[in-house]
């Protein structure tokens, strides 16, 4: 009865996801109450009359008991209503739909960089364990991991944009291309392709290179490190000897047999680093004037724009949970033992 087994597992998964989301909501909500910023002031500013203050306070439901406020919030969220952002005075959902694709584009590009460089680097390091390629990759990884990212970003801009003119400046596209393509997905490169605007596409891609490269360096370090350690585990395994006994070339032994076996834990690592890229790109976004989710959440928090913070956090959390789920599914797909 594998069908039923899957159904039970699926239901369990759904329940745990639902609980996690509820917990997420509760924690976000509590944070909103704990931050020592008066939300009313955040809405109406500092110089309003006492009447306006009281009115807005009531409008925001701040006079209700805490648990009622929470229930109200959960109810709204369940109806897809994240409220209105104070900062932009638009529905939070709309804002997020605008900023999230920007982050998604940047993080995805960074992840591509991270995976394309990190995995081969990690494999090389493991294969040459203890010899210079290992040390070199380790040190480069550590450098990528330890340098403050805004510093690196600014220096990269200074060198590649201001001095060498190899890269375009900050922003997602040149100003004049701004608004040329209608946002369908919100991911400019994709939108440009959809609209057939190759100029815009190339321009957007160009703009992506530098920030994605810098951000990618961060995940390169992590991915390479984890790949190395998984790989070392696998290379010790007996089936690797079997493959060698068969007379297979070392390349095939490593890339087909060993890598096939680390694919599983590696998807988890990649998913995790994707999640952290989505959330942790604030400084890159600042330096490269990239209006993304990280920046949005941080700014909102600083402005006590709790609707926006809650919404943004919920999205990040949902993405995280989604990625977890995805890596779970991939795990089942890639590892026959888990099927």
């Amino acid at each position, binding site marked *: 009865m594998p069908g039923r087994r899957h159904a039970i597992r699926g239901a369990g998964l759904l329940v745990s996801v639902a609980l996690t989301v509820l917990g997420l909501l509760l924690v976000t909500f509590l944070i909103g109450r704990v931050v020592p910023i008066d939300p009313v002031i955040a809405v109406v500013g500092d110089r309003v009359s006492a009447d306006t203050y009281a009115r807005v306070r009531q409008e925001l439901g701040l006079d209700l008991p805490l648990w009622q406020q929470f229930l109200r919030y959960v109810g709204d969220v369940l109806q897809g209503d994240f409220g209105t952002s104070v900062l932009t005075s638009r529905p939070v959902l709309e804002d997020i739909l605008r900023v999230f694709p920007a982050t998604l584009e940047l993080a995805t590009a960074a992840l591509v960089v991270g995976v394309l460089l990190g995995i081969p680097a990690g494999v090389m390091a493991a294969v040459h364990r203890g010899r210079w390629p290992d040390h070199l990759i380790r040190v480069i990884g550590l450098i990528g991991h330890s340098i403050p990212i805004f510093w690196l970003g600014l220096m990269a801009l200074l060198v590649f944009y201001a001095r060498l003119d190899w890269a375009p400046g900050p922003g997602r596209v040149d100003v004049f291309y701004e608004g040329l393509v209608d946002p369908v997905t919100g991911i400019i490169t994709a939108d440009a392709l959809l609209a057939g605007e190759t100029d815009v596409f190339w321009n957007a891609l160009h703009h992506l290179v530098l920030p994605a490269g810098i951000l990618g360096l961060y995940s390169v370090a992590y991915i390479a490190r984890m790949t190395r350690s998984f790989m070392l585990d696998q290379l010790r395994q007996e089936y690797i000897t*079997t493959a*060698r*006994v*068969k007379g297979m070339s070392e390349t095939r032994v490593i890339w087909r047999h060993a890598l096939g076996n680390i694919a599983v834990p590696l998807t988890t690592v990649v998913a995790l680093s994707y999640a952290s890229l989505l959330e942790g790109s604030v400084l890159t976004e600042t330096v490269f004037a990239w209006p993304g989710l990280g920046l949005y959440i941080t700014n909102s928090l600083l402005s006590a724009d709790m609707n926006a913070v809650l919404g943004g956090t919920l999205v990040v959390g949902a993405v995280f949970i989604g990625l977890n789920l995805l890596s779970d599914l991939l795990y089942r797909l*890639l590892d026959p033992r888990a099927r």
Partner: protein
Amino acid sequence: MSETPLLEVENLRISFPTRTGVTQAVRGVSFTVGREKLGIVGESGSGKSMTGRAILRLVPPPGVVTADRLSFQGEDLLTLPEKRLRGIRGRRISMVMQDPKFSLNPVMTIGAQIAEAYRVHSSAGTVEAKRRALEMLEAVRIRNPERVYGLYPHEVSGGMGQRIMIAMMLIPNPDLLIADEPTSALDVTVQMQVLAIMDELCSSRGMGMIFVSHDLNLVASFCDRILIMYAGRVVETCRASELHAAKHPYTRGLLDSLPRLDDTRAELPVLARDPSWLEGGR
């Protein structure tokens, strides 16, 4: 036993540099293998596996292998370039390892692994490779080859896994098979069946075989000739049928300490190790 040996080993030494100095795993082992079943027995750590692995140059990294002679059908295995060596591995010498649980790639289907072993050494297409693999599975008496072809290693039992290992190692039709404790993870009855398969394949193809084991009774009943190793040396060589008449005190000690079904001894004799065994001849 044939006149021209397949494999000649002379003064094989394997050492591992460790934190506390150099460990000699194998110290001057010499033997030859023809088209016969050669058994290597000895205690744990006596260097059996290392000897087997050295032949295929698969001693793990810090290990250093030296020998006066290590040649296979006239080719010097020690100095052969990596690429030529790969032509020998699997194709002409192959090795069955102890535990199918660890020795098969867990994320590849059994069929793919066997077919791969075949295709590494031939220009056969996928269809041909599959056909050969199925034939081979049948040869090791797997009942439903088509079904097993698509299974993953964790989906088969230990005995079946060991047969699959054997199929995989024999598909390129090698001249010499090294079997490193191929049945020690199996139940006695299954072990018997697997050995029977190997026995049959060996004799039908005229293969040479090195059978590494610590089970003296088994080796005595299965092999033609036996090397007894102690601490990296061969202390005694004898015909299998003459094992029970072995003279070396070490061999005698091992034999005596085996419990027997018809045992009535109040106490099993314990091996009394003699330092002079370490200097023992080749």
